[in-house]
C-alpha cells in the first residue's frame, strides 16, 4: 500500500484493468510481495484472526437482521423464531453470539501482544491509536448487540450502562433521556441500538482499512523489536505468512466451533433467556465477560462520577501509551524489569475480570481497588519511570542475527 506497485499481471484482462485501476497491483503489494519479518511468532496471527471474525460477524449479522424484529414486544420472540424456525437460524445466532466473544478474545490477545513487544512505539503510534479506536467501536457494537436480544440481562445492562452518563454533573439526566429517546429504556432505545449495531461494524471495517494501511506504511514490528535491515530479515507475505496465519486461523476456528456446537450458552447468562421485564430487577446484573474488568474498575471507586471517569480513562489511557512508555527498546525480551510489570498487568486485568463478576462487597472491593490502582500506575508511573532507569539487555544487530542466536 506504500507507493505505486511495479507489479504487472500476466493475464491480458488483468493487464487491461491494471492500466485503468491498479487494484491487482495493490493486492499484490499488500498481501503477496509484502515483506514480513521472518521472526514473527504466532501472536502476530491475531490480526488476521480479527479480520476473519469481523467478516464472520458482518455476514452472520446481515442474515440475522433479515429475521430479527427490533420492537420491545417482538424482539425476544423473533430471536427465538430464529433459533427454532429459520433454517440453520440456531447456527447463525450461535455463530454471531459466540463470534462476538471470540472477537474480543482475539482483540485482547492482539492488544497484549502489541504491549509486550512494544508495537505501539515510533513509528507505529498512529497504527496503535487506530487500534484503540477500533477497540472502542467494538465495545459499543458488542454492547448494543447484546441489548438486541431483549432478555432480562439485555434490558438491565442497557439500563445500567446508559445510566453511567447520568453521572455527568448538570446535564447528565438530560443526556440519558436523549440517549433513551424517552424516560426509560424502551422501544426508541431498542430501535436506535439496532440501527447503530448495524452501522458501527462498517465503521469498524473503515478504521480497519486505515489500520492496515498504517501497518503497511510502517511495516510490522517483530519479536526482536528491531527494524528489518536487509532482505535476509524478511520473507514475502505469500506463501510464508499466509500459510502460517492460515494454520492458526483454522486452529482458532476449532475453539470457536467447540463453543458454537457444544457449549453455545456457556458464555451467556441464563437470565437472558427470560424476556426483558422492566418491573423485575435480576438478582445480579453482570455484563458479558469481555467488559468485566472495566465493570470492576467502575465499581471499585466509591464515587459514581469518578467511577465513570476511571472507566473511560482506563480505555482512553491506551491512546497515550506510545508517549507514556519512555523506553527506546521495543521488545520485552530485552527489558527484564518491564516484562515483570507486564505480567503483573495481565494478572491485574484477569483479576479485575473475575472481580467484575463478584458482588462489590468486602474483600472483593479491596482487591478491585488494588488492581485498579496497579492498572493506572502501570501506565502513569511504571512505564514513564522504567524507561529512565531500566538497564536493558543488548539488542541484536538484525532480525536474522536474533533468529540465529535463538537457534544456537
Amino acid at each position, binding site marked *: 500500500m506504500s507507493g505505486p506497485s511495479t507489479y504487472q499481471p500476466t493475464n491480458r484482462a488483468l493487464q487491461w484493468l491494471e492500466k485503468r485501476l491498479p487494484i491487482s497491483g495493490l493486492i499484490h503489494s499488500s498481501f503477496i510481495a509484502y515483506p514480513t519479518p*521472518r521472526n514473527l511468532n504466532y501472536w502476530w496471527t491475531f490480526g488476521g484472526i480479527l479480520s476473519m471474525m469481523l467478516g464472520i460477524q458482518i455476514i452472520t449479522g446481515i442474515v440475522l437482521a433479515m429475521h430479527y424484529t427490533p420492537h420491545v414486544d417482538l424482539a425476544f*420472540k423473533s430471536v*427465538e*423464531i430464529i*433459533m*427454532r424456525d429459520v433454517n440453520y437460524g*440456531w*447456527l447463525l445466532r*450461535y455463530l454471531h453470539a459466540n463470534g462476538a466473544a471470540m472477537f474480543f478474545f482475539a482483540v485482547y490477545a492482539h492488544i497484549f501482544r502489541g504491549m509486550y513487544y512494544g508495537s505501539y512505539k515510533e513509528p507505529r503510534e498512529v497504527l496503535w491509536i487506530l487500534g484503540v479506536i477500533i477497540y472502542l467501536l467494538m465495545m459499543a457494537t458488542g454492547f448494543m448487540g447484546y441489548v438486541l436480544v431483549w432478555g432480562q440481562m439485555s434490558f438491565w445492562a442497557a439500563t445500567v450502562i446508559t445510566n453511567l452518563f447520568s453521572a455527568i454533573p448538570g446535564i447528565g439526566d438530560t443526556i440519558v433521556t436523549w440517549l433513551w429517546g424517552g424516560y426509560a429504556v424502551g422501544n426508541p432505545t431498542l430501535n436506535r441500538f439496532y440501527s447503530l449495531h448495524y452501522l458501527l461494524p462498517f465503521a469498524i471495517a473503515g478504521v480497519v482499512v486505515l489500520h492496515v494501511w498504517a501497518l503497511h506504511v510502517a511495516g510490522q514490528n517483530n519479536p526482536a523489536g528491531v527494524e528489518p535491515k536487509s532482505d535476509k530479515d524478511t*520473507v514475502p507475505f505469500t*506463501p*510464508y505468512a499466509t*500459510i*502460517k496465519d*492460515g*494454520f492458526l486461523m*483454522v*486452529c482458532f*476456528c*476449532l475453539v470457536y*466451533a*467447540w463453543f*458454537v*456446537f*457444544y*457449549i*453455545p*450458552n*456457556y458464555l451467556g447468562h*441464563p*437470565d437472558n*433467556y*427470560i*424476556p426483558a421485564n422492566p418491573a423485575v430487577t435480576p*438478582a*445480579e446484573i453482570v455484563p458479558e465477560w469481555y467488559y468485566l474488568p472495566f465493570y470492576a474498575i467502575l465499581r471499585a471507586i466509591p464515587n459514581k462520577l469518578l467511577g465513570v471517569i476511571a472507566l473511560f480513562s482506563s480505555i482512553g489511557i491506551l491512546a497515550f501509551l506510545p508517549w507514556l512508555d519512555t523506553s527506546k527498546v521495543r521488545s520485552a525480551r530485552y527489558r527484564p524489569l518491564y*516484562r*515483570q510489570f507486564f*505480567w*503483573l498487568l495481565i*494478572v491485574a486485568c484477569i*483479576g479485575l475480570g*473475575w472481580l467484575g463478576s463478584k*458482588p462489590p*462487597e*468486602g*474483600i*472483593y472491593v479491596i*482487591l478491585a481497588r488494588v488492581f485498579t490502582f496497579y492498572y493506572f500506575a502501570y501506565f502513569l508511573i511504571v512505564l514513564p519511570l522504567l524507561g529512565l532507569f531500566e538497564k536493558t539487555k543488548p539488542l541484536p544487530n538484525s532480525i536474522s542475527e536474533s533468529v540465529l542466536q535463538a537457534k544456537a
Partner: protein
Amino acid sequence: MNTQRALFAIAVAGLALATTAPAFAQIEQVTPPRQKWAFSGPFGKFDEAQLQRGFKIYKEVCANCHSIEMLTFRNLSEPGGPTFSEAQVEAVAAEYKIRDLDDLGNSIERAGRPADHFPPPFANEATAKAANGGTAPPDMSTLAKARGYQRGFPWFLFDIVTQYQEQGPDYIAAMINGYKAPPKGFNLPPSGSYNEYFPGHNIGMPQPLQAGQVAYDDGTPTTVEQYGRDVAAFLMWAAEPHLVQRKRIGFQVMIFLIVLSGLLYFTKKKVWSAVH
C-alpha cells in the same frame, strides 16, 4: 524468569485465597445434584421415550399454569424431538381450543392444528397474576436455558472441556424434588412453600408433582425423581429443539477442521523449511 514465576505464584495464591473467602449477600442457592442426561456430551441425543413422558407431565400438570408459547404442535413430530407420529400430533392439537376469528370477524374457538402454537392457560398476564398470588408463572419455552447456578472457580473452567451445559435441567429436576418442611426458624410466608433448591427457598409454586400422579404406559416408575428428570429433559428439548442436529453437525465440523489444520500444519512446515 524465576522472579516472574514467583510473582505469578503469588498472584495465583492471592486469587485462590480470595475465592475461598465467604460469598456475600447473594441469595443462597443449594447446588443441585448432577443427573445423567442422554443429551449431554458431544454425541448426546434426546431420549425420545423420555421426551414423550416429559410431554405427558407438561400436558397434564404444568400446562395448567405455565404457557409454552414458542412451541408448536408440529414440533412434537420433528426429528430430534419426542417424534410423535403426525397422527398423534393431530390428535394432541385437536384437544386444544384455539382462539381465532371466523370469516365474518367474530371471535371463535376452534380445534388446534399442528401448525398452531400451544395456547396459554391464562387469557393474559393480568389473569395469570391474579390466579397465582400476584406473580405470573413463567413461560416454559426457554425455561431450561433460563435457569442454572453458579459453578464457581475452578469448575467453570473445567466445564469448557467437559461440555457441562446441563445446569438448567439439573436445577429443574432438583427443584421438583426439593419440597420439604422448612427448617426451624425459617420464616416462610403463608403463600409460599419451602424448596431446598429454589434460590432463597421460598417458592410460590406449591409442590407440583406427587408420586403416581401421572400414569406412564411404558412401565417406567412413577416416582417424583423420575418425573423430575423426564419433565426437565422435555423442557430442555423445548428450549433447544435443534440440539441433536447441532451436536451432529458439530462433530462433522470438528473432523473437517482437525483434518484441515493438520494439512495446513504440514504445508506450513514444508514452506518454511527453506527459511529456518
